[in-house]
């Protein structure tokens, strides 16, 4: 089957394309043109449309125990719960597994990464991913508050043993990469420590957060896991301390790649009479000056949402700000976590400044290859807010209208009004397609070059970027038409992308003995057998190039 997408504005920065042209799809892959003169089986007139590769979201909480607890905690935000669905922002949040796939696809997203999978709940995460239609998925597995790793570091074990452990966890949990979340902080919180910084030591172990991050960074790098260690820093959200924590952690990269998650939540100073100010410029300058690091933003948008985090300490500390006032805090073998509803209000000084800090970071970080598009769904906003974020980045007049609606006190505390930068289509394609594929090590997607999988999104070009990116004109997944005019027309299943990192078999035996002796549980509880997920073909193994 040869499909010809004719005469669209092709935006494909990897291949140097930014102009009117054609794209061809043959049997699920992109080809440069018809072979031996055969006519296309299907031609789509893409005149007036922007043609890009399918978008990739590197950090969106779409599956697993904590996400599901958020669903349990907030039934009132599901559309079927209320007679007034349009009045409740989360009613559009893609709250079920099925809606998650359908709504992402309708916006032209074809790959989404669940960034916080606990090893002990990996099967649960994958059971949910198995129900998400259309898009490809992947996960990052969480390490850095687990007794096994902390004990290894304390006991001075060598890098070979550490690497074997990380490789074993990545492969058994069917992950694509590794994340660390408030490294050591959750473990310390179980000992009733309520504040924890980069050079603080975890009681019981005498190991600092810095040592944990550096140990994991080294292992990920040595193992050749393409995605750099994904870091959620200490002291998220705390004015003054958060920015300091992000700054000192970024400076610890020391030439080796590190990815920093949702840095908006760390862009907080303690200046001004409300002791809450923007450190957006400071963090952006560090990012600009540190080429080995990448960041995603975690943009806040206004409305009701819920924060879902494996940072148990931070979520516990934030309980007073929960709205509505209820929360779930979990303590588990490693990170645990917490679920807190939050209502970001435009008229609220703090929330307005959070919104502005996110945009400052987007606009002040110069290299679109190193800054990623996220709302940290659902923590800053549901992913369904993305079209509005595209509009804010691409159109300074839209930004100005939003700024004018903010409290004056907040506007005074942000440089946002003076920032005239507008993201180009090419920069959007880098940030949401090309750069994520590179960051995740997915050579088969993110651009429209010959031989890549035919994940393609077509948008009707227009001045209203919210409308344009909110509802794709056509979306192809692996060459199959899945969305037409913003409506899903086919619900085929995508797959979950995994990395089969090989470890010394001795590590599996050691972990068997460890879980049995220390916790009294079998290590098979941490495994995700493909045949347990109810799908014929659940995984696509990404080549591991060590």
């Amino acid at each position: 089957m040869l499909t010809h997408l004719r005469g669209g504005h092709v935006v494909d920065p990897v291949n140097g394309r930014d102009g009117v042209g054609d794209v061809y799809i043959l049997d699920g892959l992109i080809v440069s043109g018809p072979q031996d003169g055969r006519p296309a089986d299907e031609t789509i007139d893409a005149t007036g449309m922007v043609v890009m590769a399918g978008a990739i979201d590197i950090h969106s909480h779409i599956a697993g125990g904590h996400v599901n607890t958020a669903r349990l905690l907030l039934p009132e935000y599901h559309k079927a719960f209320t007679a007034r669905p349009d009045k409740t922002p989360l009613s559009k949040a893609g709250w079920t597994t099925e809606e998650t796939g359908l709504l992402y696809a309708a916006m032209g997203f074809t790959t989404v990464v669940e960034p916080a999978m606990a090893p002990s709940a990996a099967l649960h995460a994958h059971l949910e991913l198995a129900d998400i239609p259309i898009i490809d998925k992947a996960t990052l597995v969480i390490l850095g508050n687990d007794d096994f790793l902390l004990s290894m570091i304390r006991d001075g074990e060598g890098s070979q043993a550490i690497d074997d452990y990380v490789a074993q966890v990545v492969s058994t949990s069917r992950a694509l990469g590794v994340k660390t979340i408030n490294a050591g902080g959750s473990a310390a919180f179980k000992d009733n420590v309520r504040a924890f910084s980069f050079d603080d030591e975890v009681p019981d172990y005498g190991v600092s957060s810095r040592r944990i991050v550096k140990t994991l960074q080294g292992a990920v790098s040595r193992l050749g896991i393409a995605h750099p260690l994904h870091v959620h820093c200490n002291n998220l959200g705390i004015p003054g301390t958060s920015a300091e924590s992000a700054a000192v952690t970024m400076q610890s990269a020391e030439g080796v790649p590190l990815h920093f998650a949702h840095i908006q939540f760390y862009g907080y100073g303690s200046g001004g009479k409300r002791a809450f100010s923007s450190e957006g410029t400071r963090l952006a300058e560090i990012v600009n000056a540190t080429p080995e690091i990448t960041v995603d933003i975690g943009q806040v948008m206004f409305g009701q949402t819920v924060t879902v985090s494996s940072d148990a300490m931070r979520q516990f500390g934030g309980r007073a700000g929960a709205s509505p006032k209820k929360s779930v805090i979990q303590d588990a073998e490693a990170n645990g976590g917490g679920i807190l509803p939050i209502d970001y209000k435009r008229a609220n000084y703090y929330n307005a400044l959070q919104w502005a800090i996110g945009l400052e970071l987007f606009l002040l970080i110069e290299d679109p290859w190193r800054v990623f598009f996220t709302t940290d769904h659902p923590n800053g906003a549901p992913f369904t807010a993305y079209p509005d974020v595209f509009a804010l980045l691409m159109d300074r007049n839209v930004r100005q209208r939003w700024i004018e609606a903010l409290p004056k006190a907040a506007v005074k505390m942000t440089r946002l009004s003076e920032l005239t930068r507008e993201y180009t289509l090419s920069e959007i394609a880098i940030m949401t397609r090309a750069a994520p594929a590179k960051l995740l090590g997915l050579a088969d997607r993110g651009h429209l070059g010959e031989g890549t999988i035919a994940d393609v999104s077509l948008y009707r070009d227009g001045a209203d970027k919210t409308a344009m990116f909110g509802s794709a004109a056509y979306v192809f997944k692996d060459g199959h038409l899945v969305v037409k005019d913003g409506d899903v027309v086919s619900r085929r299943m995508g797959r979950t992308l995994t990395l089969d990192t090989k470890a010394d078999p001795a590590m599996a035996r050691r972990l068997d003995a460890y879980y049995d002796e220390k916790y009294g549980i079998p290590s098979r509880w941490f495994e995700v057998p493909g045949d347990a997920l109810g799908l014929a073909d659940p995984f696509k193994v990404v080549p591991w190039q060590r």
Partner: protein
Amino acid sequence: MPAPESEAVSAAANLIASSRQPLITGLATDVAGVKAALALAKLSGGVVDHGNSDVLYRNIETLRQSGMFVASPAEMRRRADRFLIVGPNVPDDAPDLLGFLFGGTRDLGRPSADGEPRRIVWLGGAAGATLPSNGIALDPVPCDAEALTDAMGMIRAALGGRRFRAGSIATETAAVIAETLSKASFACIVWSAASLDAIGVEMAAGLVADLNAVTRASSIALSGGGHAWGAAQIATSVSGFPLRVGYGRGEAVHDAWGYDGKRLIASGECDLVVDVSALETLAPVDARRLPLIAITGHDEPPGGAKVAFQVGIPGRDHAGVLYSDHAASFITVDGVRGASDMPTADGILRAIAEALGSTAAKRAA
């Protein structure tokens, strides 16, 4: 009524097709079975609920109204130094859980603030009952089952330094329990919702929250047998809600009272019951006089079923995925009886859905 499976499947599909409001319940089955039951409910415009949801909902209502602290048993086994077991039902609901919880060595966390060793308080245990305390000091505190909420209110008041009167337990006893828990390095409160009413669960969760003001504490909340919590988890990710969902309008509508399966049977608002009873930890649902399609793993099929299917039990006759209270997550289980040719609940439910789909297509044509 034994019947060749394909005939039984057609008969079941015909019953569902003629039903105004079928209730798909029991749901004592593995993850695949729960997903298949949800799909059948959606296809048939029916209601889906768990056979044990009256117990389950005591925990769910508290969780979603005021929140909870929850812990994994494996971490508590290594870390907790004070345990409060609430009510008589924990050993029945999770027979091996307490033996597991107390069965290891505490090697994580600070010493208790009072320097005393690990301690278990069992509030309202059955007279003469014992716990597998594995040498940990055990204080049984007698308390009538219906007075547990009152006793926990007293403990909370003592913890908060508020005045309270003698009630179901002595004031001094309440004060000692509060003191014992507050000196914990990490306190763990375990209850089964089968022992408590909704206010009792809220009180227990509130006690845990109060303890976290001074030290660390969390809870293990059991929701009764029959995989009720696991079914609720799967239903939540699939439909947005923890069961008690009706698909009469095509999409999932949640009404914790309106779609309570036992209430629908009692009131006769549903006119057909599909009972999935494929785990040993839950008895079949009593369909009263309503027509019944029974999908059962029990040796004795229920009397009076219009159609009955004998199926295997996951973890005994076939492999599957189940929520485990031990793991506080989902785990895989094997079929230990070896190769079994018994059908699975999941397979039967999907076959019925397929037959129902073709019945509907024929009628439309």
